[in-house]
């Protein structure tokens, strides 16, 4: 697996200035809406604390809750499957589809199925898959992964969507009107709900005490699929468990407020048992989660409820776009999850952060995201996964910062250097910082020189 080069991919993203500017503003707008909405609830901080505690409790008793969920789901008539990894998940889904002779699948949004790369697997076996969420459908037709976990096509402008739709669903390429594009997708997708032999959803929460699961959506696509097709398959990561129904009152109150700044999603659907005469299957997926649970510094990332607030607030994510992370999960949450899948491949991601901590402050389940990013940097340095330039620069910086004498000499030399060195030398390949920025003019005196001159005391 080749390494993801986040900085290189970002530089291509930034080149398309209109796209990059819009992306930044759109996500910052979502962050603002989240702030407004959260401030309306005086108990907001209490809810975050409760959500964090409930998730930590559940994860620390996860095996028992998984068994309780399975027992109750089975009693309700749900068929429960277990998948250790992506391959077993995909095989399981395919086997269920085959048993029902299903060749067309209407699918609502699920990051887990993207993580498992299920779509290409099923497509190769002749299953026609229709992503029914508008953003996810745009990305499917354009053969790109989602760039954001809540708004999958947020990096595209309306003209891009018009171009994709004209190519694939026969819209007028010159018509960039957003209501026209959305209406075209509605009309294009409707017949598939009626003819599909199977529907698929993810789940936002799986409730142990009732053996039911909850799907939070806005478009109506998940409910159209699941309430029409004779077969409903739900893929659920094992970390989605919560103990009781009443706990939904904590998580659902924060999910859409954190994600989009709306009080609740338009539809909050509860699936407890199959409709009479139909089948409901749940696939509980591990795919690295049980291993992550054992990582002392990183297990709390499993508390994530996939709201995307950390992405919307992150200055690096907003200015580099989700696709530059080269993974299903991007932004701050991706930065701390991705290395658990493949440390070498994703070793550049923990450096895609300013460590400003804003992600941690907006996280509704209080994941210490920026602290985990810092910790990953340590792990990567220890395991010699740093690129040569960064490694050498850090080694040198370590030496210089450890010695007051070397430090003073370096600062004075740097100040002189900035003013007198030719640009070609100053903006050399080792100066990553200076690639998109001008190095500021050096002040006349260093702080130490100023202090000695004006305070006159001994240093």
């Amino acid at each position, binding site marked *: 697996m080749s390494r993801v080069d986040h900085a290189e991919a970002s530089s291509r993203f930034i080149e398309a200035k209109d796209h990059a500017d819009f992306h930044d503003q*759109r996500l910052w707008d*979502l962050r603002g809406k989240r702030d407004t909405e959260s401030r309306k609830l005086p*108990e907001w901080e209490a809810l975050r*604390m*409760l959500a964090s*505690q*409930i998730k930590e*409790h559940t*994860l*620390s*008793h996860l*095996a028992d809750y*998984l068994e309780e969920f399975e027992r109750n789901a089975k009693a309700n008539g749900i068929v429960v499957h*277990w*998948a*250790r990894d992506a391959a077993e998940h995909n095989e399981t889904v395919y086997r269920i589809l085959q048993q029902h002779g299903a060749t067309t699948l209407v699918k609502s949004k699920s990051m887990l199925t993207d993580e498992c790369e299920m779509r290409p697997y099923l497509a190769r076996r002749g299953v026609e898959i229709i992503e029914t*969420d*508008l*953003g996810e459908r745009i990305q499917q037709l354009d053969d790109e992964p989602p760039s954001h976990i809540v*708004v999958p*096509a947020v990096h595209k*402008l309306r003209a891009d969507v018009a171009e994709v739709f004209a190519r694939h669903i026969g819209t007028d390429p010159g018509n960039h009107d*957003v*209501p026209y594009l*959305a209406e075209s997708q*509605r009309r294009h*997708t*409707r017949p598939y709900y009626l003819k599909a032999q199977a529907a698929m959803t993810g789940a936002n929460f799986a409730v142990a005490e*009732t053996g*039911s699961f909850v799907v939070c959506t806005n*478009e*109506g*696509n998940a*409910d*159209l699929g*699941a*309430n*029409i097709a004779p077969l409903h398959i739900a893929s659920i990561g*094992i970390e989605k468990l919560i103990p009781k*129904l*009443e706990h939904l*009152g*904590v998580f659902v*109150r924060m999910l859409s407020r954190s994600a*989009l700044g709306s*009080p609740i999603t*338009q*539809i*909050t*659907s*509860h*699936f*407890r048992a*199959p*409709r*009479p005469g139909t089948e409901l299957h749940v696939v*509980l997926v591990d795919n690295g989660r049980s*291993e992550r*649970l054992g990582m002392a510094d990183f*297990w709390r990332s499993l508390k994530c409820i996939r709201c995307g607030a950390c992405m919307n607030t992150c200055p690096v994510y907003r200015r580099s776009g989700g696709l530059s992370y080269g993974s299903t999960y991007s932004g701050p949450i991706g930065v701390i999850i991705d290395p658990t899948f493949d440390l070498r491949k994703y070793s550049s991601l923990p450096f895609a952060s300013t460590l400003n901590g804003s992600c941690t402050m907006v996280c509704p389940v209080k994941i210490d995201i920026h602290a985990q990013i810092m910790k990953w940097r340590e792990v990567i340095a220890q395991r010699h996964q740093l690129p040569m330039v960064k490694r050498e620069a850090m080694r040198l910086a370590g030496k210089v910062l450890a010695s007051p004498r070397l430090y003073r000499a370096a600062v004075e030399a740097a100040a002189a250097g900035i003013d007198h060195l030719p640009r070609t030398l100053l903006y050399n390949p080792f100066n990553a910082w200076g690639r998109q920025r001008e190095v500021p003019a050096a002040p006349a005196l260093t702080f130490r020189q100023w202090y000695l001159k004006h305070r006159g005391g001994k240093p």
Partner: protein
Amino acid sequence: MTGSREQILAAVRGHQPAPVELPELPDFNADADTSLVAFGDALARLGGRLVMPEGTPADTVRACHPQAQVIVSATPEVAGTRPLPDAAQPGALDDVEVGVVRAAFGVAETGSVYLSEAEFGVNALGFLPQHLVVLLDPAAILPGIQQAWRHPAFRSARYAALMTGPSATADIEGVLIRGAQGVRSLTVIPCAAP
């Protein structure tokens, strides 16, 4: 398959962090405003509308959608132009313009209504028609979403939805479209249950 189940449970058990206690849930906003005004304001924020009844519920449905040719109702209070199809044939609702249903209860905090198979008859009635009209007893409005999940209905329904306004999307440039793939409008008519 049992092999995977046992392996996952063993791996989870072997890796679980030190036990963390489950906190008690306080009853937030239990005494919040449950008036129709509060409910209607919350509903309007998510694009739904509250229409006060004039005449019978059937008259009000008709007044909301005067052009509709095909109306299917799951509540005996309103006669549709066509009976509800068999639950095994949800696709038969494809050409319906207006679906009518009575909610079990509403939630003032969010403007949501609770609808399950008991209310819908055919679950797709909430999604395949172009428009949905929901009758709601003003006495059946709960203060907050937290109180909603203490309602026993969630424990017996096979399928249940808290619906809050019409279907919507903002997936293209954040432009809000009401009427994404499910219903294009959602109207709540407050009237006491018979």
